[in-house]
Structure formats: structure tokens, C-alpha cells
């Protein structure tokens, strides 16, 4: 420990060899990133294999169309999540209006609703044979093709569903950023004669930009990886191309190459985000101004603007599902339901803890060990988030299977034991898959929290003789408990909704709510799928409400950030 801190200190003055400079923490983070990256590498390795004629066929026929769709979808979702997330976050932070207390936490509820489930619900409700259009026809006496009705199963429909499902990422990060803004900046803007719009555009928004960009990046990565929603809506995206190459054309090599293209695109987007954040360093005295009270029309408009995402992203689809479940005689609860709930809960909890530990390790290493190698490894370690789940699952299965078979052979030779496969099909492998997939969520959240701890605090901690490890335990973790908690809860909710990897890698006789909902929906029994879907939503509500409360309570954490308190804290803990 002493040595690592000495190395770290020396790193600032001289330039020792890269290996020496990495230190223990650096190495551990490199190895972890390597483990997380292995499946991505397995997918990318396809680039070096010769593909059949699949490429030329895809490029000549469908690929340009898929690319165009993907680009449109990404742009629309970006606009959608920013519009829903930033506007609502700003309104509930800066203003007081009727319903604000409720909306403040209700705005995260759509995270409980998997996008594919929302897609089932809206399709059932809005399609030509659904209740809305049937009622419309009964009312007007028109027949099906005599009127225009917005088609839910379309590119804009998919963009709307994904926006409503994913905007909470932006909301959460934007709100945290707005809450953390120094009062002085807003007051200065006020004195400078900026109106409410000016304050938002010229002060609040630029200060919150890193958070907003990070949230949007998460939403877009999930959009790119999505297959459930777009395939249900028959919107053909780049991911459709990957599946088509793999499944219909039976060419996994071409599929791997296409997935690599997708990753390259994500890497570019992430680098842009990174460059952006690099310029926007901010750390001030975070005491937000008291919300300004709104009355009359402005209050009504603010309430409506904040209520809309909650209604369309949560209340309405939940009501549709409830109606479906209630009208379906085949939908029942039983012992099986109980085991589905337990399985889901255990998996999500274990994965959440694992993801947070790894994310903390990586983010902290990136901060302490100023090595380009570690930085690069971190950038790459989060890539799994943008890979379509099924592609990722195969990427994991192949190297894992090799390792597992080698391990089994070794055990047989060394000890004469027939172990069979130890890892494949185990819970551990599944958690590893989740880690791969959702590390980005934990990492982004933890890292955003870490940037709020000013570098001068690190220096203060070090000058008081704390090693990097102790600085992490005594300074960062307490200060970051809010973002660490958020990270864990977000991963919990995400794992609960996860489908393709769970589907491909789970142990025998082990089903989760997501698997059950998907199986029923795939068998075209939407009404029966409503029950597991609703249960999933209900379970996700618990951590989400916790999450909202935590953000509301984070005022306490901010208090601890004041320089005076901070030093006092350090001294007390150091003495103890």
C-alpha cells in the first residue's frame, strides 16, 4: 500500500516506466477490464476470418436501408430522451408547482417498464384490431382503411417507445447535476439580468452538460443494442442485419463483423462524449437555490410537461397490462410464479453488487493511476452495453466453453475427477454476462459521482497520509454513497429486464420473469404475458423508489462536500 502511494506520488514529479507506474490498482483494473472485454474480443475476432458472400449480398440489398433506419432511430431517441429528461429534471429542480413532490420521484418509474413490454402493451392497444381504433370506428362509422391513424409499429413508434423507456437515464443524471449546481452561478445569472430561459440556457444547461451527455449516451447505447422492441415493431435496424446474417443466412462470421462495425460506431460516440466531458470541468460549492414557486398557467404547464413522460412511459402501459391480465382467464399465480420472482430477485441483486464493485475499481483506478493504458482499458470495458444481447451471449459462450473444457480436462488429468462443465450454465457465468452488459451503467454513474469529488480533496487526503485505498474507503465512498447506490439500483433494474443473455446462458430449470414474459409473448399470448410483465414492473418499483429518495436525500451528501466539513471529516476518521 505504502509503495503504491509512493509510486503514485512519484508519478507526478518524474516519469517512471509505465509498468512501475501502474501499481497494484492499475494492474487489477487492467486484468478486470481484460476479463470483461474478452467476449467483445471474441466477437471482434471475426473480422480476421473470411466471410462468404453474405457481405456483398447485404450491402447490395438491405444494409443501406438498415443503416438509414438506425441513424434515424438514434437521432429521434436522442431528441426524445433529452426533451423528456432535461425539461422535467429542470422543472422539478428549479420550480415548485402542484404535484412536484410526486413527479420528482415518479419520473424514474418508466425504468421499471422494459421497452419490449411497453411495445407489447401499446401495440395491443393501438393496432387496427385494438380497443382504441375499434372504439374510433364505432364512434365514426368509418371502416379500417377509410381514415388515417398513427401506426405504432413504425420507426417513429419505436423511437417514441424507446424514448419513454430510456429518458429516466437522462432525467436522473441531469437532475443530479442541476441539484449540484452552485447557487452563486444561478444568482450571478439573475443579477446579470437573465430571465428564466436565459438562466436555463446560459448557466444551468452548460453546467449540467456532462450529466446530460452521459445519460444520453446510455440511452443511445441501449437503443443500438435493442432487438426486442424494433423486431416487434418490424423496424429493421443494424441489429436486424446482424441477426439476419446469423440466423437466416447462417453466417455467424458476417454477423460478428457487422457487430464489430456497430461497436466501432459506439466507440466514436463514446469518444465524443469523453472529449466533451474533458473540457467541462466543474466543481463548485453546490447549494442549489430554493425552487421558485409557480402559480396559475405556468404551474399547470410545468405539471403537464412533467406528467406526460410518466403517463406515457409508465401509467398508461401499466394500465393496459392490468386490463389485459384481468381479462385473461389463463393468467394465474402459482408456485411457479413464486420461483420466478425469487430467481429474478437473486440474480439481479448479485449482479448489481458485482457491477458496482467492478465499476468502483475501474473508475478509481482511472482516477488514481494516470496511465493511458488504464484509461483506454476503461473506455473499452463498457462497450458490452452496446452489443445486442444475443451476440454478446455467443461472444461469452465461445471463450467460456473453451476455458471450461480445458479446465475439465485438467481436472481429469490431475485429480481423475469428472467435473463436467463448471462454469458454463452456472449462475457465476450468468452474472459475468450481466457484468459485461451492464458495467457501463454502473461505471457511468459511479464515475459521474467521482468527478464531483474535487481533485483538491484527493490531494488533501494524500497530504494527510492516506494511501489511495484508504482515500477510497474514507473519503470517496462516503461522499459517493449516493451515486454508488444509484449505480447498484440501476443495474438491479436492468438485469431484471435483461433477456437474451439470460435466455442463452441460464442454468437448468431456472426461469426468470423476463424469460416467462418473453416466452408467452413470442407464443403470441400477450394477455398471459401481462402477468409476469406486471410482476417485473412491481419488483422494479421498489429499488426505483429507493433511488428517487436517495437523490432527494443527497442534499446531506452535498453538505459533507463543503471544504470545512470535508477536512474535519478526514481528521476525525484519520485519528480514529
Amino acid at each position, binding site marked *: *500500500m505504502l509503495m503504491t502511494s509512493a509510486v503514485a506520488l512519484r508519478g507526478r514529479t518524474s516519469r517512471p516506466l509505465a509498468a512501475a507506474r501502474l501499481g*497494484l490498482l492499475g494492474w487489477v483494473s487492467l486484468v478486470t477490464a481484460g476479463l470483461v472485454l474478452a467476449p467483445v474480443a471474441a466477437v471482434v475476432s471475426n473480422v480476421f476470418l473470411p466471410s462468404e458472400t453474405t457481405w456483398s*449480398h*447485404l450491402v447490395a*440489398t438491405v444494409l443501406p436501408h438498415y443503416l438509414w433506419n438506425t441513424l434515424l432511430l438514434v437521432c429521434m431517441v436522442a431528441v426524445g430522451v433529452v426533451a423528456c429528461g432535461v425539461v422535467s429534471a429542470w422543472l422539478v429542480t428549479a420550480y415548485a408547482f402542484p404535484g412536484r413532490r410526486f413527479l420528482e420521484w415518479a419520473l424514474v418509474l418508466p425504468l421499471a417498464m422494459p421497452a419490449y413490454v411497453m411495445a407489447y402493451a401499446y*401495440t395491443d392497444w393501438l*393496432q*387496427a*384490431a385494438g380497443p382504441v*381504433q*375499434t372504439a374510433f370506428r364505432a364512434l365514426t362509422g368509418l371502416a*379500417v*382503411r377509410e381514415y388515417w391513424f398513427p*401506426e405504432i*409499429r413504425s420507426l417513429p413508434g419505436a423511437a417514441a417507445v424507446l424514448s419513454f423507456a430510456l429518458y429516466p437515464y437522462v432525467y436522473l443524471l441531469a437532475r443530479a447535476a442541476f441539484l449540484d449546481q452552485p447557487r452563486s452561478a444561478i444568482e450571478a445569472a439573475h443579477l446579470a439580468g437573465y430571465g428564466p430561459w436565459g438562466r436555463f440556457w446560459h448557466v444551468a444547461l452548460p453546467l449540467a452538460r456532462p450529466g446530460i451527455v452521459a445519460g444520453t449516451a446510455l440511452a443511445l447505447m441501449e437503443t443500438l443494442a435493442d432487438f426486442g422492441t424494433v423486431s*416487434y415493431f*418490424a423496424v*429493421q435496424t443494424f441489429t*436486424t442485419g446482424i441477426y*439476419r446474417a*446469423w440466423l*437466416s*443466412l*447462417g453466417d*455467424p462470421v458476417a454477423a460478428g463483423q457487422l457487430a464489430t462495425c456497430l461497436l466501432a460506431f459506439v466507440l466514436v460516440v463514446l469518444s465524443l462524449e469523453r472529449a466533451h466531458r474533458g473540457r467541462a470541468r466543474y466543481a463548485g460549492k453546490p447549494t442549489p437555490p430554493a425552487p421558485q414557486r409557480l402559480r396559475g398557467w405556468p404551474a399547470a404547464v410545468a405539471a403537464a410537461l412533467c406528467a406526460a413522460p410518466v403517463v406515457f412511459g409508465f401509467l398508461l402501459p401499466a394500465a393496459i397490462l392490468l386490463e389485459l391480465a384481468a*381479462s385473461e382467464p389463463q393468467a394465474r399465480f402459482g408456485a411457479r410464479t413464486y420461483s420466478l420472482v425469487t430467481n429474478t430477485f437473486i440474480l439481479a441483486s448479485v449482479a448489481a453488487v458485482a457491477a458496482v464493485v467492478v465499476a468502483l475499481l475501474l473508475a478509481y483506478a482511472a482516477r488514481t493511476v494516470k496511465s493511458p493504458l488504464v484509461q483506454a482499458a476503461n473506455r473499452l470495458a463498457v462497450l458490452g452495453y452496446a452489443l445486442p444481447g*444475443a451476440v454478446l*451471449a*455467443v461472444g461469452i*459462450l*465461445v471463450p*467460456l*466453453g*473453451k476455458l*471450461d*473444457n480445458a479446465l*475439465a480436462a485438467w481436472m481429469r488429468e490431475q485429480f481423475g475427477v469428472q*467435473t*463436467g*462443465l*463448471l462454469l*458454463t*450454465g*452456472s*449462475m*457465476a457465468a450468468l452474472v459475468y454476462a450481466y457484468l459485461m452488459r451492464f458495467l457501463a451503467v454502473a461505471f457511468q454513474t459511479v464515475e459521474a459521482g467521482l468527478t464531483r469529488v474535487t481533485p483538491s480533496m484527493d490531494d488533501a487526503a494524500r497530504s494527510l497520509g492516506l494511501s489511495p485505498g484508504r482515500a477510497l474507503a474514507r473519503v470517496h465512498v462516503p461522499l459517493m454513497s449516493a451515486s454508488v447506490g444509484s449505480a447498484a439500483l440501476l443495474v438491479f433494474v436492468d438485469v431484471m429486464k435483461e433477456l*437474451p443473455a439470460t*435466455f*442463452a*446462458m*441460464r*442454468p*437448468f*430449470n*431456472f426461469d426468470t420473469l423476463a424469460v416467462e414474459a418473453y*416466452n*408467452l409473448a*413470442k*407464443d*403470441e399470448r400477450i394477455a398471459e404475458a401481462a402477468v409476469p410483465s406486471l410482476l417485473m414492473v412491481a419488483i422494479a418499483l421498489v429499488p426505483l423508489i429507493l433511488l428517487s429518495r436517495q437523490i432527494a436525500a443527497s442534499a446531506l451528501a452535498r453538505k459533507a462536500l463543503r471544504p470545512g466539513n470535508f477536512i474535519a471529516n478526514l481528521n476525525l476518521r484519520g485519528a480514529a
Partner: protein
Amino acid sequence: MALCLTGGAARALWAALGLAIFWSGHARAQEKVLNLYTARHYQTDEAFYTGYTKATGIKINRIEGGEDALFERIKAEGANSPADVFLTVDVARLWRAEQAGIFAPVKSATLIQRIPAQYRDQDHKWFGFSARARVLAYDRNKVKSGELMRYEDLASPRWKGEICTRSSSHPYNLSLIASMILHLGEEKATEWARGVAANLARPPRGGDTDQLRAVAAGECAIALSNHYYYVRLMRSQQPEDRAVVEKVGLVWPNQSDRGAHVNISGGGMLRHAPHRDAAVKFLEYLASDEAQTLFAKGNNEWPTVKGVKLGNPELESFGQFKIDALPLAHLGKTQAAAQLIADKVGWK
């Protein structure tokens, strides 16, 4: 410090290994079990599993999943794979699995005698246990009898803007296109697919049930569907489902020539199966009268074994119909060509 950490890391490693053994170990114990990887996920299938366990005393461990993911998993697990039997719901997947060499031949006299040659692999690597017919559903008000008799009719300009179907990349459509290639040749099949694509009422989306509902709602006059989705609506308790059946009729296509196109759900024993006896018994059980009736009763599929009681009045109401005699293995081989054609003619 370094020593202490290594010790900690080692302990963590052993603990993880121990947990992994604990978690995966019980699936491989020497008790009487069958490890099943299946792409079937019909709740009524529970009846098979309990029926098999009752008949043989062998417990079933199962993973239900997408067939492609399960297929990749079997390949990755290699020689130590715990899987004994792999079941799919599409013949192309069986063919692809056989090509990848993951199946072992099962020389069971029972299976060979009971399952018609058309529905099984010639080297006995896979067997089809139930058949699903791809049928034409039509609006009883818009389509007159005699207007719609064959798959070929779907390409007629008469039905411009009147046809609903799911995506071309769905295996049920791919195997239909493959059968058109095998019967008409690639050139004519391309023309046919182009005609169908030109007649679509809307871009392909949703499942087969959605197409049936779309016909009932008046969005289109004709839909392609697997027969059992229609039977499911016939047997539904919901009034709106039965209203669909009243508005929509079914045509068994090409009855005057080659017969209706069918796909199968089937499976085989895996090459590295650790419980081979149990696997053979399971496949034989699926071909038994009891299980074959369950296919009809539970999921409204046609048994592939001849002369089995259906126990399903709705399915029986269709009577006998002529089935395309094409060996199903050929469909698997032609599937990639079918997708190429669909992409070329813009059938999404």
C-alpha cells in the same frame, strides 16, 4: 501486504470455484435424469414432461431458449455439454444442427417405424414429432370461394394491397419460400416472392395471430398463418377471439396439386449426451400415442405419427388434407437461398 492479498485472492478464487461446482454440479449427478434443451415453450408441454417422468421414472432438467442461442451453447459446451436432447420448432434449425455435427444417430426401430420418412433425417439424426401447416386465412366477405386456392395465387395482381404477413426472415415464411424454390425453381420463386411483396397491405410486422386479427379488422383480405394460431382463436374463451374466427376462413392451399406446406417441430439426441438411454427413451416417448395426442390436444399441432387420436374437436373439424410430400430436410438446405430472394425482392 502482497502476500496477504494473494492469500485473499486465492481464497476468493477457490470460493468462486466451489460455488460454481455447487451450482452446476447437481445437474450432472448420476441420478436418473434427462437434460433437455428446447426451443418449444408452450405451457401445455408440461404434460409431456410429467408424462415421460411418470412412464420412465426419469426426471427432466430443462432449459427453454431461442433455438439459435441454444445451438451456439451446445457447440460452445463441446464434449462436456450436459445436454442430452435438443428440440426445435423449425426444420431448418434441425438441418443446420445436423450439418454442424451436434446430433448422434438414433437407430431406434420404434422411431423409424412410427415417424414417416418425410419427417425425419435419413441418417436418423433428427425426428419431427409434430407438423404445422402454413395456411391462407381470408376475409369471408372479400374473398369468394375458388379465388384463393394455391400459394401461387398470393402473387396475383388481383390481391394488390390485400395481403398481410409477418417478416420474411421468420423461419415459417422462409421455409415456405424455400418450398416454392424447390417446386418452381429459383427464377419462378423469385417472381412469386416479388408478386407477394408487391401485394402487401402493409410492411410485414407482428406475429401470425396479428395477421389473422388484421384480416378480421379489415386491414387486408388475406393473411399467411400457421394453422394452430387460428385453432387457438377457435378454442379461446374470449368473445373477440371468436369474432375473428367468424369473419376469417381458412384455405388449405394447393390441394389439387402438391399439397399444403408444413414445417415441423422435432429434435434429436446430442453427440456428447451423457444420458443416452434416457435420451432415446425421451424421443421414443414423443413418438408414442400418448405424447402425439398431447401435441394435438395441447398446442393444436398435427401429430406426425399416422392414425393417432387427436382429442381436439376443432382440429378434427378440418378433416383430412393433402400435405406437400417434399422431404423436410430439403427445406433446411434451401433456407439461406430463400432469405436471399426475399431481400432481393424487398419482402422485409
